[in-house]
């Protein structure tokens, strides 16, 4: 899923300062699952914002709404009913959602409430870790199902650097050395030989190197 984390309150308060009525929009997909922007967080943030302004003697009217997905225009359309009653929108979705709202409602300022972080998995309840950088050309088949691009600090494709100690990355001992993981995994699978193959330099065009990406499924295009 796409993970996100709420921005510092100060930043949120600052960007809403010019407004009196806003719409706070959650998203029932990834950000709900990573507890950053679902209905519950919308409720909490709404209260927090109102209190923060009340404290300054100002009333901020917050309308709460949570869409099924903010990255689909049909769902975003649901905001139409509310949008005229507010001066600005704050979205708790990932960057996709924020942009979708901005695209649909050209005259309303939209602010992100969260920092969109990465594509990750939940390691355990309450802990999410980066697993994929969306490079567009998956190497996991070569690396035992562990991504060196997302999980090695240096994105090394041919093995660990000289700094890995006890299976941990030199950058931060809390980070597992991706190559240690890859190697352990290859060994467990009896695929040690895979390591010996030199992986050629990557074609980053499939990643961000080729500019903003787009997927077109001809058969589905309407």
């Amino acid at each position, binding site marked *: 899923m796409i993970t996100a984390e709420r921005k510092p309150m100060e930043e949120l308060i600052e960007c809403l300062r010019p407004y009196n009525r806003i719409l706070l929009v959650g998203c029932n997909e990834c950000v709900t699952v990573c507890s950053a922007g679902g209905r519950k967080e919308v409720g909490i943030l709404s209260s927090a914002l109102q209190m923060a302004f009340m404290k300054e003697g100002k009333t901020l009217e917050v309308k709460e709404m949570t869409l099924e997905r903010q990255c689909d225009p049909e769902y975003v359309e649901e905001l139409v009913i509310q949008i005229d009653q507010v001066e600005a929108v704050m979205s708790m979705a990932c960057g996709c959602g924020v942009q979708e709202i901005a695209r649909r409602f050209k005259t309303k300022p939209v602010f992100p409430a969260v920092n969109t972080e990465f594509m990750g998995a939940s390691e355990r309840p309450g802990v999410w870790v980066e697993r994929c950088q969306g490079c567009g050309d998956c190497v996991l088949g070569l690396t035992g199902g562990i991504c060196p691009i997302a999980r090695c600090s240096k994105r090394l494709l*041919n093995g660990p650097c*000289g*700094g890995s100690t006890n299976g941990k990355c*030199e950058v931060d001992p809390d980070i597992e050395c991706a190559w240690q993981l890859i190697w352990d995994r290859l060994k467990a699978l009896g695929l040690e030989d895979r390591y010996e193959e*030199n992986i050629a*330099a990557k074609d980053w065009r499939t990643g961000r190197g080729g500019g903003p990406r787009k997927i077109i499924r001809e058969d589905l295009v309407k």
Partner: protein
Amino acid sequence: MKTESVLEKVFASGELAVTSECGPPRGAVPEKIIEKAKMLKGYVDAVNVTDNQTAMVRMSSFAACVFIKQLGMSPILQMVTRDRNRLAMQADILGAYSHGIDTMLCLSGDHPHFGDHPMAANVHDIDSVQFVQMIKDMRDKGKFQGGDDILNPPKMFIGAAANPFADPFELRVARLAKKINAGTDFIQTQCIYNLDKFEKWMEGVRDRGLHEKVNIMPGITPMKTVGMAKYMKNRVPGMDVPDEIIKRMAGVPKEKQPEEGIKISVEAIERLKAVEGVKGFHVMAIEWEQKVPEIVERAGLLPRPTIDL
């Protein structure tokens, strides 16, 4: 001979090669590097010039190499994959070679996390193995990495680093093999203090016959104080400093510790000379360059062979 590199010629001569290194200054004046390089003249075959070492901004390695070259010495251009993408790297290689710089050391580089620009994007367009491959292809196939032909291909003698100690240990030999496969001509290793473990590594290297495909130069770094020894042991990732070394350093009074450090280095060189596959030594005296000549001398590595430039 693949190249004009002095280092290649020393290896070819069958003599043990000696290299050392110079860090470019953190400023726009060349005096410092010239002064440092001069100290080494006559004692080493080539001088590594680091590239934003420890992820701290310094004068570019290329520029510093030019100054050393002007002193009539042989520089080794270090380049890391961290700061440049493959375009910039190839461009710089062409430029360096055009200035007569014909030896390179390919590294991935320290992570920006450790340096003075932790906020910098780390490029890592390609990794060090791919880097070696790229230079080899430029040299031998005359092709840019993208596949186009090079009009006058640079003939670089290609070096790479190896750390015999980092984890997973069993991967260290295989990792070396990959670098050799990619086209590495010589290897400079991480500082060696744990001689037993290094020898074990070399055993692995010999088992696969890699010592015949590449010239391995163990890194030697004298320690000034017991504090430095402890720092290396505990704080430098991938460094293996056995407790005996610490004990030995701690066992002498503070003022005698530098001498003890040098002694340890000299003894190491003497012991490793005998190891099959060791083709030279990379003597790095960090912020203590003046001691390199003494070590080289006491280790019996003098005189250096004269190579025609």
